[in-house]
């Protein structure tokens, strides 16, 4: 395939993901509002926000790191998409596999941090205490989430003897009974619990806890910066869901399946979030060290002996 | 101890004095008494030395008339062992030297603390 065609498809996929992410975000907020007995925002609200933010006339900067923080964030989101096979088409050279063959699961896992890191540093230069608080909470929770997730991912990698996301998806084709959800239930359970933390909804919405620290790291950002961040957030939400989809829920063979599965995965965290109030950080960390960790260890032990 | 000759007796006495000396060294608190105990110990050793040179029925190791009057003029068969007698002389002198030194120490120690109790001189310990 011509590299330019490939780039075009990839860009198209990115746009789909971006817009789907914004729509999904609006949907979830609406669901939340309805559960609370409110009317909620219109579905077009994210687009309105984005254009409004980009259109803001005055922009400020606290310094170079502050300035490139959003760039890091968005690059992180875009990069995640680039390294993730989106839609499975039965061939490693399918049009929606993006650049996933330049790396594997490990690259994705570590590249997730790229955007977080950039945002954290950019927000840090802003000098707002809430930013630092949010980041500190986020990092602590991230570390705790990582442990069960890593165990589960390792288990899946052992199961299929590969780190390649594409191969893992490929191996799950041919019916839902081949999904990791059923072939490796411990790992799947660990992922399902741990991903609540990764997706960052209540009770694990410590980073952006609105009524405590405004919106955390992004507190100091407005205008275009905020727009960038919102875009990045939309992409990253979909990408996280897509990662779990690929690893546990059999991947997607077409865009509809992708949208449905990511919606359900995302909805799971929203569903939990509506029911449970926010944890404190130590509660959150200890929570992940209990059942999810146990499940993760079981998933590993299954293959250790 | 099938036979109690002079050698055995003096040897036993020597050891007895040594034991008394040790007892004194270990129990007496007064420095002068300790020195006395040491001289007793020393004397015991000297007796030991001399009695080890003893040979039954022999005379002093001086080649003079008393030896020459013995039959066949053989010095070897007529005198006791001269070596311990020479050694004991040295031992006595050494004992004298040590005792003299101890006494000098006793004098100075008493001057320093106006006491002769040995357990008072424990500035250096541990």
């Amino acid at each position, binding site marked *: 395939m011509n590299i330019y065609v490939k780039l075009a498809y990839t860009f198209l996929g990115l746009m789909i993901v971006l817009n789907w992410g914004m729509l999904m975000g609006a949907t979830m907020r609406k669901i939340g509002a309805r559960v609370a007995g409110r009317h909620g925002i219109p579905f077009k609200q994210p687009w309105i926000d984005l254009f409004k933010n980009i259109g803001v006339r005055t922009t400020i900067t606290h310094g170079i790191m502050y300035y490139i923080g959003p760039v890091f964030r968005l690059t992180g989101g875009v990069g995640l998409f680039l390294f993730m096979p989106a839609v499975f088409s039965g061939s490693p050279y399918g049009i929606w596999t993006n650049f996933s063959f330049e790396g594997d699961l490990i690259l994705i896992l570590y590249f997730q941090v790229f955007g977080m890191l950039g945002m954290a540093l950019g927000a840090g230069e802003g000098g707002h205490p809430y930013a630092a608080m949010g980041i500190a909470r986020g990092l602590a929770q991230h570390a705790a989430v990582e442990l069960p997730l890593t165990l589960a991912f390792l288990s899946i990698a052992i199961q299929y003897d590969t780190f390649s996301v594409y191969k893992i998806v490929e191996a799950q084709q041919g019916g839902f009974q081949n999904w990791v959800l059923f072939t490796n239930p411990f790992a799947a359970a660990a992922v399902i619990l741990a991903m609540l933390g990764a997706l960052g909804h209540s009770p694990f919405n410590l980073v952006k806890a609105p009524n405590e620290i405004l919106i955390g790291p992004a507190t100091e950002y407005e205008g275009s910066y905020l727009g960038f961040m919102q875009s990045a957030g939309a992409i990253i939400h979909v990408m996280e869901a897509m990662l779990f989809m690929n690893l546990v829920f059999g991947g997607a063979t077409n865009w509809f399946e992708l949208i449905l599965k990511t919606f359900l995965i995302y909805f799971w965290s929203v569903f939990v979030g509506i029911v449970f109030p926010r944890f404190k950080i130590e509660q959150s960390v200890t929570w992940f060290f209990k059942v999810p960790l146990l499940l993760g260890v079981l998933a590993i032990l299954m293959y250790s002996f | 101890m099938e036979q109690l000759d002079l050698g055995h007796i003096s040897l036993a006495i020597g050891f007895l004095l040594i034991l008394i000396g040790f007892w004194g060294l270990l129990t007496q608190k007064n420095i002068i008494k300790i020195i006395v105990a040491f001289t007793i110990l020393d004397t015991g050793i000297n007796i030991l030395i001399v009695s080890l040179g003893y040979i039954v029925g022999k005379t002093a190791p001086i080649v003079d008339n008393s030896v020459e009057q013995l039959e066949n003029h053989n010095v070897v068969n007529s005198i006791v062992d001269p070596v311990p007698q020479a050694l004991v002389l040295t031992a006595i002198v050494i004992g004298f030297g040590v005792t003299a030194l101890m006494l000098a120490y006793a004098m100075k120690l008493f001057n320093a603390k106006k006491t002769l109790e040995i357990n008072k001189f424990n500035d250096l310990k*541990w």
Partner: protein
Amino acid sequence: MVTPIFIVAIALGVGFSIGVLNKLGKNFTGGLVLAAITFMTFISYQWFYAFTFGEQTPTYVYTAGFKPPFSINLLMGQYEAIITLMINSIGLLGGIYMFNSLKERGSNAQVVYLILIMALNVIVMTRDVFNLFVFLEISSIAIAGLILLEKGTRSMGAGFKYVLATSIISSILLIGIIFSYFITGTLNVDDFISLSISTYKGGAIVVFLIMIAVILELKPFPANGWGLDVYEGSDPGFSAIISGASATASLYVLYKIMAFAGVEWNYYISLIGIVTFVGSNLLGIKQENTRRMLGYSSIGQVGLLMVILGFKDILGENTPYIFFGILISHYLAKAGLFWLSGIVRAKGLKEWAVIRKKPFFLFLMGTFIFALIGFPPFPSFFAKWTLVMDLVQSGNIVWVAAILFGSIMEAVYLFRWFGYAIKEENKHLEDFKIEIHKIIPVWIVAIALYGFGYFVSQLTEVSSTINFIPFAFVILLFAIDFLPIFVKNTVAILGMAFYFYTIYPQLDNFRLIFEVIFIVGGILALIAGYAYKGKREGFYPVAILMYAGLTGIIEAKTTLEFFYGWELMTAGSYFLIIRGHRSMPHGLSYMLFSLGGAYAILAAFGIASVGQDSISMSIINNIQYIPTWAYALLIVGFLTKTASVGLHIWLPGAHGEAESDVSPMVSAILLKAGVFGVALTLIGMGAENNQYSVLAYTLGWIGAITALVGNLMAVFQEDAKRLLAYSSIGQLGYIVFGLAMMTHLGWLGGFSYVINHFLYKAILFLTIGAVVLRVGTHNMYEMGGLIKRMPLAFIAVLIGIIALSGVPPLSGFTGKWLFYNAVLDKGWYLQGAIMFFSGGIAFLYLWRLIHTVFLGQLKDNHRTVKEISIWFLIPIYTLIVGILVYSAKPQWILQPLAEIIAPFFPSNQLVWNGGTAISHYGNWAGTMVMAIIGIAFLAVLGVQLISTRKAHKVKQFDITYAGERPERPETTHVAYNVFEGLYKAMWPATIPLVETFWNKITNYLHDTAGFTRRIYSGNGQAYMLHIVFFILVTYLVIIGG
């Protein structure tokens, strides 16, 4: 040749005549005494020379013109020549040293001193036991008299106890001698040997009496309270004589007596020796009084020499080498220390801080202490090496363990003392005066120590191959220490560069990697040294000493050379570490852990040499005798240097408190020495050898837990350098884990980490160190917002933390990716998961490091600080270039690495397709990933540049703060205890179990020592009781009921 009888004649002639000559003044008599001793020294030197360089045969001197056994004869053989030369030399130097204190007491004291030296000569030479007794008594009386050189009740008390003790001992000796005459009819030692006295009826008990008396003269533990009091109570100059001359003579007497005592005594002598060595050194750790502590040390060393004598049949022809090697070191070093204590006039250990006011004296003190412990290049190093080798080879491993334990105890108190001298507050202490006649002897013994060290090393074939050039360079730097920094730094850098240039063609690639890290890294770290001002006294010699050691272990072809380099490195790094503020306790624990590790390595080398006909380094590839234990010892030894969990407690303080440019040296560079050792060991074990899998498995867990502990502890630090120090522990855990996997991927990952850790830890430590120099604090919460003042430093730290955290596209990801593959390949899933969790934790402290230092709110007092020094920036940015190259083209480094590893671990697990690494599990294209991310980044940046082109800069406090503005930066800067929430969740994992463990051990040892030493109640009678008790217990054990 002058017959040795003149030693006696001249001494007595001068001695007796002084009663008349003292009219000519005390200076004259003093000079006369010294002249007499000089003549005596000359006589023994002449014999020594004849024996050493000529064909001299042992010569008997007959007195009274009759043949022995009818008269008394003296023997002048090779050993006698050496020992009398030692006695006379120290007598001469001591006489010079004590010239004034002897003069003060008058001509009588001078004579007594002369006669003491003479008597010790005769003790050594005489072959008649009764004559031996007489001259032993002479020496005892003379010592009892000379104790009084020091005035006061304390010395009188000590002297009296000494008289009492020796009189009991000599009584026992005399009883033994007279009975030995009674049963054999002779008093001559040679006759005793030829008649084999112990076979006579009652022979055993007679020998016992003589032997026990001679042993008691050597002050065996615990019947030695009187000896300790003498060491403490007498004039330090005289203590040196007791330690150097008297103990030496007594040891030789023991050797003489052993000739007829029968071989069954050898074991008991060793036993008493080892009890003395361990016991004395154990009690030594509780001492606060210098001279008493030195006394404990002297007695301990004599115990060690007794062990050697007891093993003389097993050690065979090496006995003299070992014995004299340790004896010479002890003799010179202890004399030097006692003399120093007389010059410095400090009683308590802490008062020794005053010695720092004259740095040269500190150097002397260090020389003596290192010689005592057995560091290279001193004779004791070579002797101890040979001793351990021979003992292990003869299967006496328990003895080796005991000896090494005792040595560690000795190191504990000596280095604590040294630490006080270097670090303790000394402003309130009055400077000490120096008298020229007291310095000269100290000088001479110090020079002699170095000289003998070289001489001893040339005696045996294996030690003569050691490369002394780096050490000579250290000496050179000592010599030019008075020059300004700029010159010394340049000399050091050029020297290292030149040395590297000459050495690198000789190294294989495996070693070359480490040599580059050590030497090139060392040069980079040294460049930062230009930022310092003044002279920085003592820095360059010790830094180069460390590098000399490091290159030594790389170049080592034999285990001896390796150990030599290892010890040099330990010494050098100890000095480097202890230079920092508040670093004394950490320096001590570093030294002790290092020594413990070094001894483990030493023992392992010994085991490895069993059944081999060489000591080439390759013997560790094929250990025949208890190999698992040997490898375990090696690993434990090396893990002390990699600061793996359990052995890591020294590191945070040592690295955290070190100077700014020292931290990267000891962290980025020095730790790799341990890695090098672990790598060598694992290569030795071999990949295919399953019998060591338990060892490797354990090592893997150690690595994983180390990584977790290190990273977790780093999260909760407030001190930037300690944070980095803990981070080093964690990173080294990764490396150990990788190596322990013993697979190609594991090693590749491990080595990738070795290089990476060197790069980014050097960057981080250098940068943070430079920042600390600017802002004057280690505490991160006192910094903040420094990006505004130090953008270049910020960029360096940013690159450093991205690389460390393993976030693509920088090089840290290489290691992570390799590890994931290796873990899957090896099947160490749980350990692997711990490792990756640790990696996640690393983000926390890395963010904290960069955020709390460079981001957030700039403090008022830092508004004018400058960018970090250019001399720091140069090495930092050189290293950054390294990281960027490695990140962009990982195959440039990984492919050669794979080739290096391939001979040990076959390389079929990873193939390269251009820039793409392909393993069984996945692939990764470093260059491509970097390009993709770079393009994406630039694209996004472009969009943002367009949309925010009108952005204007706002002030620091212009933030969304409820419409108010923050009062002060301190209240707005979130930095202190930021991870409190995590701490609340994870505190059980931060309980310092290891520290508690070591503290308990330390306390236990201290309590034992404190309790045991109470037997030395200071009561002379109790001491006599100890002696009698010792005799009886020994009697019951040896002769039996």
